């Protein structure tokens, strides 16, 4: 039931409240104890007039119009931090915040940057507005060519769902090409949908466009049905989350793994191939939709540890407290809006953590202290100098790379996808 159809006897608050109750698990929202932990942990909580606690309070006081009048709901990056820490385990991210964004969309209250991304998704099957025919142009030059299932018509073991950013964004494409190298080295029989693939739709869904998500999902589902494969792997966690958790409700059911899970299962076979040393301190960033939402924390770390020369460190926010890069929930297309509101970028926050963690590790490590003396005396150091932020989601690479350019001490931090690091180690 859409809140825009106002019943004479019910207030806006009641109509919205009813719509929440109708969502799966929605009645739990009654149990909110107004503790404010959600607001506290929210990365943008300080600038939101519409944090989960405040929304529920407004509903209870029959003042939901105030919430609708504010556009700060678009600061929410759907990172699930609030849902994770809520003591009552309320469905905050995919229940409350999703429904609110949907309501805002229906009344036309949506920042223009996001509007364009949504319209492009509808028209071209990708938020960038690139030609669908060029979706697999990134494979040009690869030898042997990457099989596009519609053309080769041969069964494969693995259908690789590449995703928007890995297909069209230059930095995402680098990660994709690296993954080709790794998969080939392991002898994996894989194929891609190519121009038939459209956006997984997960970010559009979390931005309030359930209808658009379903339309995209059904298209992908139809192509899955026409292809012959055993399982799906994805480059990015958003597609992974969509295919694993959301597509089944649309009768689209396939076993799916994020590529790090897939490679981790084959670590015995992969490790001997990692022969080139990469001397670096590596911090791994848990992407929201791989870590917090789907509980996949170890496989990426084990892959990194298998690379010779890598010294893996944890940042102060890690595992389920990992800091969002800011790309989820539509945030990828809301930088202008979010900057205007907060004058800060989550990605920069995260990069500062990379810098700090190396410093802290150095500081507490005896060898680190020793290295300081060696550097002063112009002697070779024992610890690797290079610092790398390892990511497992194509949204993150451009976001973090931009951040490294604006933070002074981070100029030497390199941002790389795990696939790239593995490929470089071969």
């Amino acid at each position, binding site marked *: 039931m859409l809140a825009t159809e106002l019943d004479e006897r019910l207030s806006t608050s009641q109509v919205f409240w009813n719509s929440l109750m109708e969502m799966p698990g929605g009645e739990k929202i009654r149990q909110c104890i107004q503790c404010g932990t959600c607001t506290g942990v929210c990365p943008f909580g300080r600038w939101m007039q519409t944090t989960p606690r405040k929304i529920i309070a407004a509903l209870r006081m029959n003042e939901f119009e105030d919430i609708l009048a504010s556009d700060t709901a678009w600061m929410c990056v759907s990172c699930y931090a609030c849902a994770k820490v809520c003591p009552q385990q309320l469905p905050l991210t995919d229940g409350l915040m999703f429904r609110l964004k949907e309501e805002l969309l229906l009344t036309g209250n949506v920042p*223009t*940057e996001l509007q364009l991304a949504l319209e492009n998704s509808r028209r071209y099957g990708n938020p960038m507005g690139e030609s669908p025919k060029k979706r697999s142009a990134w494979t040009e030059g690869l030898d042997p060519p990457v099989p596009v299932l519609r053309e080769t018509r041969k069964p494969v073991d693995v259908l690789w769902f590449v995703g928007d950013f890995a297909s069209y964004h*230059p930095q995402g494409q680098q990660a994709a090409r690296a993954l080709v190298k790794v998969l080939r080295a392991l002898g994996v029989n894989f194929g891609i949908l190519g121009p038939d693939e459209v956006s997984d739709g997960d970010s559009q869904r979390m931005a309030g466009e359930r209808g658009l998500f379903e339309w995209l999902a059904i298209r992908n589902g139809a192509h899955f049905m026409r292809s012959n494969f055993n399982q799906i792997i994805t480059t990015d966690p958003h597609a992974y989350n969509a295919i694993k958790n959301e597509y089944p409700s649309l009768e689209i059911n396939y076993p799916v793994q994020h590529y790090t899970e897939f490679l981790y299962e084959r670590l015995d076979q992969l490790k001997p191939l990692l022969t080139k040393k990469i001397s670096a301190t590596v911090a791994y960033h848990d992407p929201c939709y791989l870590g917090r939402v789907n509980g996949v924390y170890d496989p990426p770390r084990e892959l990194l540890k298998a690379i010779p020369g890598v010294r893996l460190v944890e940042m102060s926010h890690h595992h389920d407290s990992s800091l969002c890069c800011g790309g989820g929930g539509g945030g990828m297309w809301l*930088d*202008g809006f979010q*900057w*205007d509101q907060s004058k800060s970028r989550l990605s920069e926050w995260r990069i500062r953590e990379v810098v700090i963690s190396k410093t802290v590790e150095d500081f507490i490590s005896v060898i680190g202290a020793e290295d300081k003396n060696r550097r002063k005396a112009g002697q070779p150091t024992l610890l690797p100098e290079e610092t790398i932020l390892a990511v497992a989601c194509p949204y993150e690479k451009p976001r973090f790379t*931009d951040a490294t*350019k604006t933070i002074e001490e981070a100029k030497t931090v390199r941002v790389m996808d795990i696939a790239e690091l593995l490929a470089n180690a071969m």
Partner: protein
Amino acid sequence: MSENILVVTEHLQGRVLDITYVMLAGARRLAEQTGGKVIAVLLGYKAQFLTQDFGADKVHSYDRPSLEHFSPDAYLRVLEAEINAEQPRAVLLGHTTIGMDAASGLSARLHLPLVSQAQRFDGSNFVSQICGGKIMAEGPLPEPTALVTMVPGGYRPEDGQGRNPPILEKQAPGLEGMRVRLSHFIEPEAGDVDIAKESVLVSVGRGLQNQNDLELVERLAKDLRGTVSASRPLVDKGWLPTSRLVGKSGKAVKPKMYLALGISGAPEHVEAVTGSNLIVAVNTDPNAPIFNVAKYGVVMDMYELIQALSNALEQEAHAA
């Protein structure tokens, strides 16, 4: 029926618009084919002085107070009379806010064939530029009288200039009962800067993702001692004022260097920058039409280029 070519000249607030000279140049080429004369048609009020440098064989002047400024209704009536009287081989109008308002109406009223977006004539064929400049369409000039709206780019304005063509004053038909009335002009906001006078322009287009990224562009412009300008999409979004608009509806510019970032190069934009001394274009699409106008091109994400260029300029500054 004559073989003459009529040119519906355009003027605005006391000055001749460039498209007029482009049309006169085109008319001359056509007239050479048909063996007719080039007749410039002027509608105005005491505006004969504007025709001093027209490259025409003669001028037909319709002089009335109510014709001082363009008005679609009035132009339709006068031009209808002129075309009926002259029966020319072709009538050239601008593919502009002035010419387009009249051309199609004349086609319907007089049942004359119309060709749009013509860039030049090849012999007695028209060559039109359509689909954002990506496609050219050519065909024989239709008979008996062809109405043609012209875009710039095929002829140089200088080639449409001449000296003091003789002026024939003509009687305009009755202009009472006009259903469209000009109320007043609204001047553009003065703006902080006149981009037409700037020496270096750093221009941005759709490639700019977010409004606050303008900061990066402003900084680069500053390092180059230039100013930021833009193509239509950004001005429509309100990210920059109209005073910064480069294009058909904005300003024509002639800087020493025009750095086009994330601009595809649609004709309405390109026509306003051809006077630049040096055009450098940056775009992720190797097929972007801007690369056909620029002297140097880079296929790259504009953000990457801005970053690298800012660094390089910083180093230059330190080295100097």
